[in-house]
């Protein structure tokens, strides 16, 4: 990268004018620390990475950076935790990463059950403050140390979403800096004096302009403040823990919480049981625990992982529902729900885990579904993982999804590490109104593997999605590749992108490839 050329120096000077020396960096060592993320494709690009790292302190700073980007035509992207995705696209000249570390404001509105957060506030921080006042926020498996805002903006699946809804449904008022530097407020924040307690509108809901199952990576706007829903928490102020890391245990008070792990003879039986549980509207958290996730979350070391895997220990429970009953109203509610669940288990042919397995798993892992802690263990056995292809539709469609996605993987990717066939995560939302499935696989972080899993494979799958159930792979495929298979939804999106990002500076290599669209238009004009 041409560090130090005249344009680079000019951009640096202007960024320092805006933020001050302390918060702008272009040194080789500093930028090197932003050269790769978990989606190891960026590792392949580690010879080229960003040229600037900036640390804005507030929304006005962000606006000014974006205005500079438009004036001097340099691309930028944003990051909070920086684990997934933000860095892999930093592959163009003069790329500037906006690192939100300084923007860490958090305010809880206890009465109206919401929290206003800035980008670098973590889920754990939100939950710690929320639990003090009897509230909580659901946390995805990636880990509670990751940004709450980013997870709501990007994806955000978790077991408590069974009750509290998918992340998209937990976003209230937002403040965004558009790619042209204008400030946008959505929901009730758009109405002066209203506050940020409500998410819709006014009028058509522009939240969905930047998020479906997954978000737009900041391509259509940078969220600088988000209000998220909090939900009632009938538990203690602090999580009760014992032991010392990595052998930490967490058990919630048994008068208000109870975990059940129920195995089923077939996947179909498991799905049927989930439907019945959803119909009964019990439980605070429910999901299918698949053997692979159980294996990597439980194991405290690689050796333990392979030992249990070779013993096929967790594979003994291939079709397991993990459900935690929460006594929101009272202890009596817990008793009632236990009775209901036990009836359902009997009717649906489920079998409770033996106590040995229960005591092995529950104290160490189960409450990673209350506050996610062991997500990064995904990467223990190979260095990286692929989060697979996300599917959301009915619970029944899960039964067709997994064979389809394995077929895709068989066709396009090299083998994952042991356990590919056992990765079969299922969550449901809004009491089983709809469901999501995900198969993730760990793989060895080596160049050939990375290229195979995350390089060409993504492009192929992105194209080959027309009739697929596994349609929403998100890692690298821009929407202009997938759009033609889905009613050309990318065409109006490109117009919107062009209108608000005329210089194509906001994360230009992700989400929507405007250069590719421009080329296609030129080709079409020629042939016309």
């Amino acid at each position: 990268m041409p560090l130090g050329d005249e344009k680079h120096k000019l951009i640096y000077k202007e960024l320092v004018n805006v933020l001050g020396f302390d918060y702008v960096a272009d040194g080789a060592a500093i930028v090197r620390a932003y050269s790769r993320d978990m989606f190891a494709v960026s590792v392949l690009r580690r010879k080229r990475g960003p040229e600037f790292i900036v640390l804005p302190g507030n929304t006005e700073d962000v606006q000014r950076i974006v205005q500079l980007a438009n004036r001097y035509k340099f691309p930028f992207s944003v990051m909070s935790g920086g684990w997934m995705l933000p860095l892999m696209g930093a592959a163009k000249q003069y790329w500037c990463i906006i690192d939100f570390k300084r923007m860490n404001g958090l305010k809880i509105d206890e009465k109206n059950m919401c929290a206003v957060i800035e980008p670098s506030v973590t889920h754990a921080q939100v939950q710690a403050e929320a639990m003090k006042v009897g509230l909580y926020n659901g946390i995805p498996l990636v880990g509670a140390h990751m940004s709450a805002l980013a997870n709501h903006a990007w994806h955000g699946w978790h077991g408590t979403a069974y009750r509290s809804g998918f992340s998209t449904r937990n976003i209230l008022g937002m403040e965004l800096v558009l790619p042209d530097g204008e400030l946008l407020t959505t929901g009730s924040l758009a109405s002066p004096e209203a506050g940020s307690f409500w998410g819709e509108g006014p009028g058509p809901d522009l939240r969905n302009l930047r998020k479906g199952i997954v978000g737009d990576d900041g391509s259509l706007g940078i969220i600088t403040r988000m209000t998220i829903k909090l939900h009632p928490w009938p538990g203690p102020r602090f999580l009760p823990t014992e032991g010392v890391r990595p052998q930490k245990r967490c058990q919630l008070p048994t008068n208000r919480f109870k975990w059940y792990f129920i195995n089923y003879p077939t996947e179909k039986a498991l799905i049927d049981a989930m439907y019945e549980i959803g119909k009964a509207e019990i439980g605070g958290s429910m999901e299918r625990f698949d053997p692979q996730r159980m294996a990597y979350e439980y194991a405290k070391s690689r050796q333990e992982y392979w030992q249990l895997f070779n013993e096929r220990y967790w594979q003994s429970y291939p079709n397991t529902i993990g459900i935690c009953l929460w006594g929101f109203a009272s202890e009596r509610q817990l008793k009632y729900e236990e009775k209901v669940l036990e009836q359902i288990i009997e009717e649906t042919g489920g079998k409770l885990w033996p106590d040995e397995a229960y005591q092995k798993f529950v104290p160490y892992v189960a409450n990673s579904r209350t506050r996610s802690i062991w997500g990064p263990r995904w990467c223990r056995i190979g260095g990286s993982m692929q989060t697979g292809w996300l599917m959301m539709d009915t619970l029944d469609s899960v039964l067709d999804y997994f064979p389809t996605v394995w077929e895709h993987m068989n066709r396009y990717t090299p083998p994952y590490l042991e356990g590919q066939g056992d990765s079969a995560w299922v969550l449901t939302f809004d009491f089983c109104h709809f469901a999501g499935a995900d198969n993730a696989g760990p793989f060895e972080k080596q160049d050939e593997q990375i290229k195979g899993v995350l390089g060409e494979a993504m492009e192929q799958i992105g194209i080959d999605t027309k009739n697929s159930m596994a349609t929403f792979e998100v890692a690298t495929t821009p929407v202009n590749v997938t759009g033609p298979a889905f009613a050309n939804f990318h065409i109006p999106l490109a117009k919107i992108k062009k209108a608000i990002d005329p210089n194509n500076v906001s994360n230009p290599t992700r989400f929507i490839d405007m250069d590719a669209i421009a080329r296609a238009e030129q080709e079409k004009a020629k042939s016309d």
Partner: protein
Amino acid sequence: MATEKGKALSLPTDDWNSKYYWDMRKVAWNCARCSTCKWVDVWEVKDARFAKICPSSLYYLFDAYSNQGRMDLALALIDGDLTYDDDPELLDIIYKCNTCGGCDAMCKGVQDMEPLRVMLEIRAKSIEDGQLLPQLMPIIDNLRKEDNMMMGKKADRGKWAEGLEVKDLTMEQGEVVFHAGCRVCYDEELWPVARGMVTLLKNAGVDVGIMGKDETCCGGRAFQMGYQGEFTKYAENNLEAWKNAGVKTVVTGCADGYYAIKRLYTQLGAEFEVLHIVEYIDRLMKEGKIKFTRNVPMRVTYHDPCHLGRRLAQAPGFYVPGAPMMGVYEPPRDIIKSIPGVELVEMCRIKEYSWCCGGGGGVIDAYPEFNNFTATERIKEAEATGAEAIITACPWCQRSLTDAVTDVEGKMKVIDIVELIQQAM
């Protein structure tokens, strides 16, 4: 092997992915950038304000200053993608770290890795490559000349013990040596602490002696700074001196020294019993040889020194993947709770997820404002508990925290655990 899903599954091609062993490049390569190294164990986060574990990341903000960033730099240096000349800030990045091990402890919860060891090896490598941090050079020069890390004169080392009736192990044999440590020897305000330790042991009937003015640095802090050669020299010297004195047990009140002697010296074949003063007192207390008879009505909190805690599980050669990050957590707490009238309230970050005092890794010498920031954060955390005193078990911690209280004109008392014990006897 094929499965019913139709595809051959694979086992790792690299045996490192089956069973961990130390390989610096593999560790650096394998960092997944999950950022676990920056944050406290999430199950233990009780307050948003006290959720970070890495002082360097909190103070300097850019990711290069976190363990994750340093893994990227280490990889780049190893692979030749980055040289020292590429960035004048590189050496600062390497050294603006307390080596508290918080990052490493958290990382080990989710990975089989030794990222702290990588950072220490990079320091050693940079010194080998002739890249010396200017701020540390006078410290090391003085060490070489005067056998201490405090810019003091060797001749003054034994002054803290003047008038103390205790065996001189340079003249006599003794089973237990009390190693005072550089900080205490040359920080006059802390002399009463060391004197108190010796007196306690003696009064409990322990046959304790000291090396006095002939005591030399344990070499531990030099090791943290990357000067492994210096460390080895001092370690060998101490081992020889203690062997000659017939020592079987080494006791110290300095957590840095405790770690060095307990963990690093074993690599050189040491076979002594090594105890921190809190372990010894806890043992004596439970044997009934120390009794607390006076009421000490005080609300206190306890600061876990890094080298008395998680660092013990992180020493090179001591890492066992999956094993708990054990440290000396309970003995000091048992002692405090046994003192009548004392109420112990815990801070948010304790034990293996404790916040550092800021004094380690050469930071107190090279980056005093960073040291002060880290210590001030700890004082604020202590204040949030409502405690009137913060108890610690390391003179480096005591110095860092005391200076932080002074700088903010705070009211928090900073007390070594032995000082608290003395109030109860």
